[in-house]
């Protein structure tokens, strides 16, 4: 474990200007609670949670207010207060459509926090119980995908990767978390490793995150169970598949999961949240978030309650500058533009980025593709972005599928380097949705065909049975009358027998 880790290169990638200083100049600040918290019921991959509180009810910090349905995560109140409504509210989603949210009026005097019991003796606790705790705490992947964490802990794992390679420009929440809470990341990593039975743990941090590296090494001084590895700073190194490639040299198969290689990857923020849930009994109710960009007066990294309005966060960072032009949730490469700042902070939001007009190039005219191949050179998933673009334009989805659009991680590099300013990622996002809808339609139509055939077969069978019954009745009637002349007793017996048989088949029909 003490031998230096051998590193590999992943295909494509690019060095981008980092802009990380803005949000790392000062230590992180605790964001004051806003007067009102808005908690979307769907902040994770999977189904929306089901509310467990009613308007008018008092809640306290840490109380569960919505429970997971199917694949999903519980939701907890980040602060004491009163539920004022469960209603549709704008959420940070590309559609701009509102979604159901629990709205809480914050009142710190409403009651003491109700945390889960702390489990300081976790090394003696069954992995299943620790996994249940992670589920109870409503923890989701904090790196951006918001996949319910407990759902990733079901398969045996050899290598656990703690992902601190925060490669996207501007975002600095993981860096600040590592600088300030490296021991929590360490403990969370050990707990996760115990749950999945991982024999090796690697904490990967980009080599330019000096403060984070120093803090991590200090927290792990003398320990040999977690290897701190400085990985080269190349975007998108923090992508799960790219990082696994760098650390192991192995490639996650197309359509497969890292678990197929015996590898599990968790964001360092997720690990810290796991440590909080187990060691302090604290559900996931707050997170580190960078409020940064050239469009805010005083960029800062905050520890903010989930559900805090974005406008409140921006106000904590000194508010907008006059030349602020666009609000983005996430980073400049993979983030999504927000139409309004009246949306809440969600579990998956690592950064609130305010860009100025000078940094945008969306309005540059789109020119035809000149087949320069730059996009192919930078693509970290080894796709052919230009071919995908052509086939999407032509609506040829069979070709799009053959070119493995599903493997696109939407890192944005192809569009970034495109000299013709083609919004390639927009095409891929559209194409992925269309592929999903097509697959769903195909599945439904296959099901309908099967059910239609089954119904036809059933109707034919019922007709045949009815005809057979009728024929049997007709056949038995003359036999009874014919026997009448010879032997009246036998004839009466036959009649009774026929009647009984008829009643029995009718009963069977009725049942």
């Amino acid at each position, binding site marked *: 474990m003490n031998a230096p880790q051998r590193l590999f290169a992943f295909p494509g990638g690019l060095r981008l200007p980092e802009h990380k200083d803005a949000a790392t100049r000062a230590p992180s600040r605790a964001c004051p609670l806003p007067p009102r918290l808005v908690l979307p019921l769907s902040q994770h991959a999977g189904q929306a949670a089901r509310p467990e509180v009613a308007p008018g009810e008092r809640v306290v910090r840490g109380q569960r207010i919505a429970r997971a349905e199917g694949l999903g995560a519980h939701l907890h109140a980040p602060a004491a207060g009163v539920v004022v409504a469960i209603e549709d509210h704008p959420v940070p989603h590309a559609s701009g459509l509102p979604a159901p949210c629990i709205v809480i009026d914050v009142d710190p005097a409403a009651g003491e926090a109700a945390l889960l019991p702390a489990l300081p003796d976790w090394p003696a606790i069954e992995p299943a119980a620790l996994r249940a705790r992670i589920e109870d705490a409503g923890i989701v992947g904090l790196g951006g995908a918001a996949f319910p964490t407990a759902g990733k802990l079901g398969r045996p794992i050899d290598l656990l990767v703690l992902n601190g390679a925060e490669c996207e420009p501007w975002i600095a929440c993981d860096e600040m978390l590592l600088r300030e809470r490296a021991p929590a990341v360490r403990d969370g990593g050990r707990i996760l490793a115990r749950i999945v039975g991982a024999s090796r743990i690697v904490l990967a941090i980009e080599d330019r995150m000096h403060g984070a590296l120093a803090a991590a090494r200090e927290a792990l001084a003398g320990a040999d169970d977690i290897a701190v590895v400085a990985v080269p700073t190349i975007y998108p190194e923090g992508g799960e598949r790219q990082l696994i490639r760098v650390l192991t040299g192995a490639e996650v198969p197309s359509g497969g999961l890292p678990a197929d290689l015996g590898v599990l990857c968790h964001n360092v923020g997720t690990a810290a949240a796991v440590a909080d849930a187990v060691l302090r009994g604290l559900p996931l109710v707050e997170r580190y978030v960078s409020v940064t960009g050239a469009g805010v007066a005083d960029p800062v990294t905050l520890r903010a309650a989930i559900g805090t309005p974005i406008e409140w966060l921006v106000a904590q960072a000194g508010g907008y500058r006059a030349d602020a032009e666009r609000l983005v949730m996430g980073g400049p490469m993979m983030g999504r533009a927000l139409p309004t700042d009246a949306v809440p902070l969600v579990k998956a939001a690592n950064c609130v980025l305010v860009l100025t007009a000078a940094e945008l190039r969306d309005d540059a*005219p789109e020119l035809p593709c000149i087949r320069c191949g730059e996009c192919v050179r930078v693509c970290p998933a080894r796709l052919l972005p230009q071919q995908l673009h052509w086939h999407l334009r032509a609506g040829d989805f069979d070709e799009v599928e053959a070119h493995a659009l599903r493997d696109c991680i939407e890192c944005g590099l192809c569009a970034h380097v495109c000299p013709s300013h083609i919004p390639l990622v927009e095409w891929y996002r559209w194409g992925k949705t269309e592929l999903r809808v097509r697959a769903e339609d195909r599945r439904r139509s296959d099901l309908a*065909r099967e059910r239609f055939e089954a119904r036809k077969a059933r109707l034919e069978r019922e007709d045949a049975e009815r005809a057979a019954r009728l024929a049997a009745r007709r056949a038995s009637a003359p036999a009874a009358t014919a026997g009448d002349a010879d032997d009246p007793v036998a004839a009466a017996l036959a009649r009774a027998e026929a009647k009984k048989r008829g009643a029995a088949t009718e009963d069977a029909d009725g049942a």
Partner: protein
Amino acid sequence: MATAVWVLGLLGVALGALLGWVAVRFRRAGAPLADAIDKVLPQTQCGQCGFPGCRPYAEAIARGDADINQCPPGGEAGIRALAELLGREPKPLSADHGVEKPKVLAVIDEAECIGCTKCIQACPVDAIVGAPKRMHTVLDAECTGCELCIAPCPVDCITMVPARAGLAGWRPSRPLPRLTALVDAARLP
């Protein structure tokens, strides 16, 4: 000259006989063309094409008894797929058979339902559950949105709702090309 005619003529007859024998010897069971057409059809089983289900319509197209533009649920995309499969020119959807609409699902107002089972008998894919004088309900995952249950309902308690509504059903739109006068717009798709 005469030899050439004889040779080519005999060759033609021999090869023709061979082809005829192959056609009989290696005939495939079933109706592969109808199967291929059935695969393209949306399986709504609505009967708007004039045939009692998608399979009968596919067989009619294969026989040449029906045109390819009689399926409103399949819409323009469905007609294009059929045209490509059959090597024909696409044509607009026949107005006699209906208009293309967004996908819908049937929903029974369970408070109004009297339990007459008429809709259960009408459903072509058995997507309605219920029993006589008991409330009926539609299985969302199985409903094809054919609307065949609407007419038989004596209390009009069945409505059609959009199948992909709200945030879960939202889809990003196709990107619009941002063009300027620099570019010859007519030459771009």
